[in-house]
């Protein structure tokens, strides 16, 4: 258990959290000193989110003790944690888009003071002081919905500071930022540390924040597997600790086959989203398209499937012209698209697993205007077995499945249509580590079977592990083409951001 550390700002000892038989955290110790920056690393499902929820009072630990500033906390709630100076900046920032910058910043501290009345001038004054403290100039009266992502993050930081934060926990702080914005964020973090504010970064992409951190803690499967000074870690060793594998899975290398061209994209143009995008893809090739948020990768992915209508350009599949901006025609040309947010765009969550697969095949099982239910269900069940969807019953709703299995259901629907080409947008967003590896295996298999697969992702290890070739987008343009196996993760990250 270890002896109490009197100087620690946060001292969590022997934290265990069990949910209905599943152990999310197992005897984890976590200590943060004032003014210290700590990287809390781990893959999805490693327990890092649970640890943060316990620390911020959202969840109660099954066992273990929490001390904040030496004081033993029992029955911690989000409000009590905030009052003790522990504030979380969620990945979505949890701001109010309809309120002004000033009000967003001042809201929590005003609630904490149990105020009944709202004073616009006082709120502005609070906000102005905090913005000045970190040396940032954002118009106080702008509505938050109109701000760029980096500014929203700064507003969220200011809101934490307005509550006299002693520890700021940042969830995936650099995901949506450009390299320059990351620089500025790191500058502000240094400033806060000098003032004695501690910071915990929670992320699976930590290379960027390592340089301002003193300590790294790595969780895997609910256990602490590594802890030490930040200078002892680099991107490779972090990945090794997080995945438990010695080396990242080997890249499939450059595409070797001499297969014919499957897809040809010529001068695709959509002002404001992407411009002059051209590339070719051969049968059996797995092609990665990457770029930061807002680089146009998502619009391009949607344009390939007709969900976004480009102003000009040409898409040909197997020598046949595919009409632009027409998803029905794209599906008829046997292009499949698995969206990033499968929960809202791809699946009928409350419907059964079987029906979710079958719905993509309704028209192929028509007999004189009636539906051949037996053939339809048989085929869907067949695909679900082939993709190893783990479920006690195929008639259970999709909501009952884990993220990885939901992704398989979405894949099964498209595979049942025998596509020539599949576009996978963020194929492993929000799935656990094990499922991720399996999804990567599936992607490689699809390529091996002669499908063309496009993987759209900003998960660099994922791209490196699955793609023969990676196209990098920046500001709506295709800026780089990289052969698989010829680049490291760090180099790729630089190419995306610079």
């Amino acid at each position, binding site marked *: 258990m270890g002896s109490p550390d009197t100087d620690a700002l946060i001292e969590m000892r022997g934290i265990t959290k069990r949910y209905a038989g599943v152990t999310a955290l197992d005897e984890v110790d976590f200590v943060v000193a004032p003014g210290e920056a700590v990287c809390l690393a781990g893959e999805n499902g490693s327990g890092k989110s649970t640890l943060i929820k316990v620390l911020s009072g959202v969840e109660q630990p099954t066992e273990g003790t929490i001390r904040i500033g030496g004081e033993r906390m029992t029955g911690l709630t*989000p*409000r009590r944690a*905030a009052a003790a100076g522990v504030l*979380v900046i*969620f990945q979505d920032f*949890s*701001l*109010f*888009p*309809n*309120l002004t910058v000033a*009000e967003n910043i001042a*809201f*929590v501290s*005003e*609630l*904490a003071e149990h*105020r*009944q*009345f*709202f*004073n*616009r001038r006082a709120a502005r004054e609070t906000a102005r002081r905090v913005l000045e403290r970190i040396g940032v100039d954002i118009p106080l009266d702008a509505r938050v919905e109109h701000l760029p992502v980096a500014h929203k993050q700064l507003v969220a930081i200011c809101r934490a500071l307005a509550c006299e934060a002693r520890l700021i926990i940042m969830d995936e702080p650099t995901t949506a930022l450009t390299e320059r914005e990351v620089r500025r964020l790191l500058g502000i973090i240094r400033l806060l540390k000098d003032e004695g504010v501690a910071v915990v970064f929670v992320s699976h992409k930590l290379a960027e924040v390592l340089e301002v951190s003193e300590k790294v803690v790595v969780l895997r499967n609910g256990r602490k597997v590594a802890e030490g000074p930040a200078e002892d870690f680099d991107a490779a060793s972090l990945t090794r600790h997080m995945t438990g594998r010695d080396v990242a899975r080997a890249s499939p290398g450059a595409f070797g086959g001499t297969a014919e061209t499957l897809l040809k994209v010529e001068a695709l143009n959509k*002002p*404001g*989203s992407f411009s002059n995008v051209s590339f070719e893809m051969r049968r059996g090739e797995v092609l990665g398209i990457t770029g930061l948020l*807002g680089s146009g990768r*998502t*619009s391009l992915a*949607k344009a390939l499937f007709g969900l*976004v209508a480009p102003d000009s350009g040409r898409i040909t599949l197997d020598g046949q012209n595919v009409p632009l901006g027409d998803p029905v025609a794209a599906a008829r040309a046997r292009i499949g698209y698995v969206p990033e947010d499968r929960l809202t765009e791809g699946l009928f969550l409350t419907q059964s697993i079987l029906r979710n697969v079958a719905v993509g095949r309704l028209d192929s099982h028509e007999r004189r205007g009636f539906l051949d239910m037996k053939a339809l269900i048989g085929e869907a069940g067949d695909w679900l077995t082939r993709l190893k969807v783990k479920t006690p019953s195929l008639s259970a709703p999709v909501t009952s499945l884990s993220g990885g299995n939901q992704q398989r259901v979405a894949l099964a629907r498209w595979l049942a249509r025998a596509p020539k080409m599949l576009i996978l947008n963020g194929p492993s967003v929000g799935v656990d580590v094990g499922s991720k590896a399996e999804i990567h295996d599936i992607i490689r298999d699809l390529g091996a079977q002669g499908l063309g697969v496009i993987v759209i992702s900003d998960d660099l290890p994922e791209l490196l592990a699955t793609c023969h070739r990676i196209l990098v987008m920046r500001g709506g343009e295709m800026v780089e083409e990289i052969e698989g196996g010829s680049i490291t993760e760090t180099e790729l990250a630089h190419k995306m951001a610079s």
Partner: protein
Amino acid sequence: MTSLITRNETLVAVVIVLFCIIAAVSDPNFLTVTTLSDLLRASIVLGILAVGAMLVLISGGIDVSFTAVAVSAMYMTTKFSLAFAPEMPWFLIFTLSVLLGAGLGAINALFIAGFGLPTLIVTLGTLSVFRGFLLTFVGSDRISALPPDMREFSRMVIARGTTESGDFYNLPWSLAALVAVVLLTAFILHKTMLGRSIFAIGGSVESARRIGINVRRTQVFVYVYVGALAGLAGILHGSMNRMADPFSLVGLELSVIAAVVLGGARLIGGYGTITGTLLGVALIVLVQNSLIVIGIPSTWQSVTIGALILLGTGLPAYQAKRAAARAG
């Protein structure tokens, strides 16, 4: 402020001015104190209901039951007064109706804040239940023999007179009720943490929960307050029409919501201003009462209102969608 020209308020104000200009040109009698006082009178009940509906929209919900609340509170109050205390002074009658309205609003709050059910479903249900209950168990007769003090109230005027051309006009005290509702609501929305919390939960319920806003308590307040406003609007309606009609008011809810949406409140929550809402009400009242003046047959009323909604709310929504697609 560049946003001033694209705001709904501005758009609605421009349409109102245009309407008045055209009306004044086609009928010189339009721009008189008499018309103004008629329009004001017609705006009172609609205005109070609209302020309530706006509050619900800001909080991220939608209420379609408020007309049933209004008519139930009004009719039950009238029945009660006639049966047990016909000599009740008007302010007690009003208080009773407001309390009944708040009570019915609390039933909405129970389902919405207590059980977490969708607001449209709940209020669609209570709209039917409240009205059905009223007509089945309380009564379905139109009562024109109101308690004397309720009738008396409708005769109390702030100002009355005859214009030089001989037209009669008056401003009833019920107008003061609208003014009071507007001032009170503006104070709550802009000067209290409760009001800011209403905006906050409309902006993002999840964020509100995370920073420790008591979402349930805020919702309870919203639905009870809206019920109370409906109770007030109902009793004013009965008093001004000098009749307690259990079949009245219900059916108006969509016109009221239309007025609020025209004024810039968004159905997704988080947005809405009192100025905009009042302008929206003014426009709807103008269309309902004076369309004939500018030469459009009154059968075209609902077409006109519908077209205004499509234009007034569709245009900004379309622009926002375009902007989002560009950012995509």
